[in-house]
């Protein structure tokens, strides 16, 4: 566990010490703020609940993009810089490496989310806000972001460059995102399967409305765990492949 935290701490420090980390943080906050003002608040008067629901809808899109951007460097960059050898020749398991990497990105993502909390707080100025809806929405953003980080971390374990990892991770996330569209043109029982596997549609929307369903939490946690285990297996396979 110490090694996991050690790796996570170093990676987290690297996000703050490098331009890319600062750009992702500031870019996320800037775009989320613009979307909040332009669409969530909008020109027409709305109920606070509707403003929050719209905010979480747009913020979920930003969460997916940010998750991909944060995770694409995690392993592929080490491979590019030839520093992965340091971790692979240390007395660590692949699981410790992957979890350390994942936790660093998740911690940075959580910091980004925490920095965006002022946006829903602005609604306090003009109306009443349900704190539970905010909590549920942010839990949804955290779970969705964690899943996107894990999926892109898997891509990062596959790829030799972080650009390629970002492209593959983005593609995987997009494929999972549009499964609900594929569900609309298929019939049962495949329709239900595709609907369930869709990353965003039926699993995220309830969070934005302030509803936390155990099955949605289970979906995101399960997807994250599955992607991380696949990354562990992929990292281990390099010993055979090289």
């Amino acid at each position: 566990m110490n090694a996991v935290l050690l790796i996570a701490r170093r990676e987290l420090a690297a996000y703050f010490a490098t331009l890319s980390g600062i750009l992702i943080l500031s870019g996320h906050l800037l775009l989320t703020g613009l979307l909040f003002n332009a669409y969530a608040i909008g020109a027409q008067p709305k109920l606070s609940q509707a403003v929050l629901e719209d905010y979480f809808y747009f913020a979920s899109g930003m969460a997916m993009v940010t998750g991909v951007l944060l995770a694409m460097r995690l392993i592929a960059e080490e491979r590019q810089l030839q520093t992965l050898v340091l971790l692979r020749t240390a007395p660590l398991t692949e699981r410790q490496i992957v979890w350390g990497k994942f936790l660093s990105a998740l911690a940075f993502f959580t910091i980004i989310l925490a920095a965006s909390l002022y946006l829903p707080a602005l609604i306090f100025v003009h109306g009443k806000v349900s704190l539970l809806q905010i909590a549920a929405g942010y839990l949804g953003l955290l779970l969705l972001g964690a899943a996107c980080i894990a999926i892109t971390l898997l891509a990062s374990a596959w790829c030799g460059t972080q650009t390629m990892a970002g492209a593959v991770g983005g593609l995987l996330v997009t494929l999972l995102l549009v499964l609900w569209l594929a569900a609309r043109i298929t019939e049962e029982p495949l329709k239900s399967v595709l609907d369930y596997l869709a990353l965003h549609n039926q699993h995220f929307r309830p969070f934005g409305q302030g509803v936390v369903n155990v099955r949605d939490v289970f979906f995101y946690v399960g997807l994250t765990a599955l992607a991380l285990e696949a990354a562990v297996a992929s990292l281990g396979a390099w010993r055979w492949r090289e």
Partner: protein
Amino acid sequence: MIQVERLGKTYGSLRALDGLSLETRPGEILGLVGKNGAGKSTVLKILSGQLLPSTGHARVDGFDVVSEGIAVRRRIGYLPESPPLYPEMSVAGYLLFCAGLRGLTRGRAEARLPEVLAMTGLSAVTETPLRQLSRGFQQRVGIAQAIVHDPAVVLLDEPMAGLDPLQIVQTRELIRGLKPRHTVLFSSHILGEITNLCDRIVLMDRGRVRAEGSEEELYAMRSSARPMLLRLRASAEDALAALRKIRGATTTPVPELHALPGEVWLRVAHREDVRERIARACVEAGLGLLEQRLEGEGLEELFVQLVGDGAAPAEQKAR
């Protein structure tokens, strides 16, 4: 300390290691020498747990590199050809991170750090970001990370590659300083770099050991006695006349070596040690003996003779 038995590794159809066997003793410095592609890095990668062997076994301190990889990696320090550095980290921060990865507590790592910094000559740059260091200093940091946890075995892959002559001398001293405490196995494709450094040298070619032994033992393996070169202050005629009388030696001029005015270079082919006889003959004939040395004293020539153009000679071992 390290036992490698009939180790084989193939990359697709390419055979990088072909039944290689070697052994190191505790506290020994062993140099793996060979041309590019001889399989040196592959051996080190297998021993450090980065690669799995296709056939054979390798053990470090009694632990198998495949089935007991974690235990092996706890006992080794490894420096790849390019030092694995995080450019944004400081020297001290990086070494503490590496120590933590290898299982040292923060307290033990901080206690060990000054010793490692002093050993590697990094005490003056502890807070400098790694990206600002010169290539030579980065290499020192690379060696420091390999020994920061005080491992029994240190594996260094081409530790002097890309360094300037002064840095090579400094790195050689650094590696020599590891000897009392660590068993060192390192690779090089430049024989001149490892002169007077290794207890034993293993000459590798095409994934196999071609010869092994100390430098002196390897020299002794040469198939014929090396000719001797003489630089004399005399005319060629006088010198040849004086040296022709020496029993067991054949003397010829060496026009390809340019002599200064009044001097001459001669090559003496010999079947036995004739150095004393040459000196005596020169004194008796009144010739000025300016230089006397065996031809081709460099390890490179030895390597060419033992390995040649890649044809597989019989394996040779000196013990």
